[in-house]
């Protein structure tokens, strides 16, 4: 549905009279070549995914000895994968991490962004607010890899190692800078009239933040939620550093262990990869507009 409207929007406008091309046939042929190239390139880009999907239905013998054979397809790899993998545990852990860290992260980012932009002091000086905002935004320049070892020590010091919070806290911290960048950007443009009207009605701070301003920030918050969930879902460096309990394994961490688990059972390895990939691609297919908007937020206005 959304794809249809996209296509309609991007169709070229009908040619104006007098704009008739000199050689319509040649132009039509050119257009066919352009279309064919576009489809071909898309196919080439998707080919690796199709290839592993194909491998997941083949026996190890044919993968090794007849790489292009299409006979002897089997679903045994999936049975093997489901038996070996604890997919449910991986999904449960990743889902808990994503829901908890993204929810807490967005709530506290919103509160901070609100305080940084919408609060007015008797002294009238915004200096503290601007300095603090800048302090949060410097985090955008920090590569997470620099944090791995110090965070590992912190988790041990706080006794969090081996719990979900070992990962939840750094995930929140890492997402705060961009959350605050985007939220303060939108909160600054919040119409003052609405705020004034709410003050007249006797709204307190809490009601102002959650009942008056927040509802209008929902689109931004939704964009950030998508972006943050994708981040946590795919996150690997923290997970591999801070988890050593198999019961806490996340999806990414599980994937990194496939080669060790399956050794040379390539078919089962690919079946497992497909089992991880499919739900993710299905969700992407359902929400592709929002996902693309979320991931390019900040770069594309």
């Amino acid at each position, binding site marked *: 549905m959304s794809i249809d409207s*996209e*296509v309609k*929007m*991007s*169709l070229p406008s009908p040619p104006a009279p007098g704009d008739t091309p000199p050689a319509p046939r040649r132009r039509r042929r050119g*257009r066919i070549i352009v*279309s064919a190239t*576009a*489809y071909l*390139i*898309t196919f080439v*880009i*998707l080919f*690796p*995914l199709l*290839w*592993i999907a194909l491998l997941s239905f083949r026996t190890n013998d044919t*993968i090794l000895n007849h*790489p*292009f054979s299409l006979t002897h397809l089997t679903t045994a790899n999936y049975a093997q994968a489901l038996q070996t993998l604890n997919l449910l545990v991986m999904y449960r852990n990743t889902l808990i991490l994503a829901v908890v860290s993204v929810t807490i992260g967005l709530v506290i980012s919103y*509160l*901070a962004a609100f*305080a940084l932009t919408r609060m*007015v*002091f008797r002294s009238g000086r915004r200096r503290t607010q601007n300095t603090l905002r800048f302090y*949060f935004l410097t*985090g955008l*320049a*920090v*590569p*997470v*890899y620099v*944090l*791995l*070892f*110090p*965070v590992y020590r*912190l988790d041990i010091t706080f006794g969090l190692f081996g719990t979900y919070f070992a990962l939840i806290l750094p995930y*929140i*911290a890492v997402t*705060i*800078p961009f959350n*605050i960048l985007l939220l303060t950007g939108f909160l600054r443009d919040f119409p003052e009239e609405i*705020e004034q009207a709410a*003050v007249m009605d006797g709204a307190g*701070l809490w009601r102002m933040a959650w009942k008056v301003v927040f509802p209008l920030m929902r689109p931004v918050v939704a964009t950030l939620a998508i972006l943050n969930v994708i981040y946590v879902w*795919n996150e*690997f*460096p923290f997970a*591999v*550093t801070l988890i050593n309990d198999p019961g806490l394994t996340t999806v*990414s961490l599980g994937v*990194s262990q496939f080669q060790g688990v399956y050794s040379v059972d*390539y078919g089962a390895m690919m079946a497992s*990869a497909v089992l991880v*990939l499919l739900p993710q691609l299905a969700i992407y297919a359902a929400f*592709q507009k929002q996902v693309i908007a979320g991931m*390019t937020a900040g*770069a*594309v206005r």
Partner: protein
Amino acid sequence: MNWLTTRRHFALMIAPALIIYSVYMIYPILYSLYYSFTDFDGVSANGFAGLANYRQMAQDDAFWTSMRNTGIVLGIALFLLIPLGFLLAVLLGGRVKGSGALRALVFAPAIIAPILVGLIWIFLLDPKIGLVNAFLLAIGVPAHPQWIGGPTLSPYAIGLVYLWQQIGFVLTIFYAGLRMLPRDVMEASSLDGASRWQQLRHIQIPMLRETFGIVTALVVTGVFKVFELVYALTGGGPVHLSEVMVSYMYHITFTTQQYGYGMALAVVVFVVGALASAATFLGNRRKGEAR
């Protein structure tokens, strides 16, 4: 607007974010910086080592190899990923039927976990079980290049896999830029008889200068985050020849447990990454002024 708030409320609202951010992001940076001047090994509390770790780095061949490999990935990103992403944005920019769906499909690799992308590409690039060499064999090419696992090609292979994952993302940003260009300029120029190529060269590319700047900045920061691809494809081997800066830092810190030296490498990753971003930023500003 005279809606006054007390400092106490302000402090309460900002405190949760401020504390978590300071403890888990700012403090770790200071911690890394401090321990990069020690020979900390996790047991003995502290031996102040001055610049010893940085001197060790200057003489560490593996470190320079990792720098070079990060440079190779950066080169592929700048000179292949950005131009190809732009051309693809033009190609999938609307005239083709179903181009919206094609753009969505090309974007798909960007949402896959990088660690899974690495695993997938093993089955294309591995010299023995990979599709690429099987294909070369099938069409009669006798060579069996070691795309991954060999001594030379791995960093290029890592760069190309990174390109594969990012191209839809780059395309999307260029596509958004292209759509914001005023339509009438294009129409006027085609009435004046400008060819598609001339339009691209003299109108669209110059007008998208700002977009090119944004893409460059994103790609430069992105390259310094490449880690999982190395982890999955080569593990940095053989003998650290395919290590990038981040993966080498990870190896020194967590595998060999030379924490002091590892933190020095982390500091260098941070500084080099920040310098590259700053250079991109200044370059963008300079170009903008020259206009």
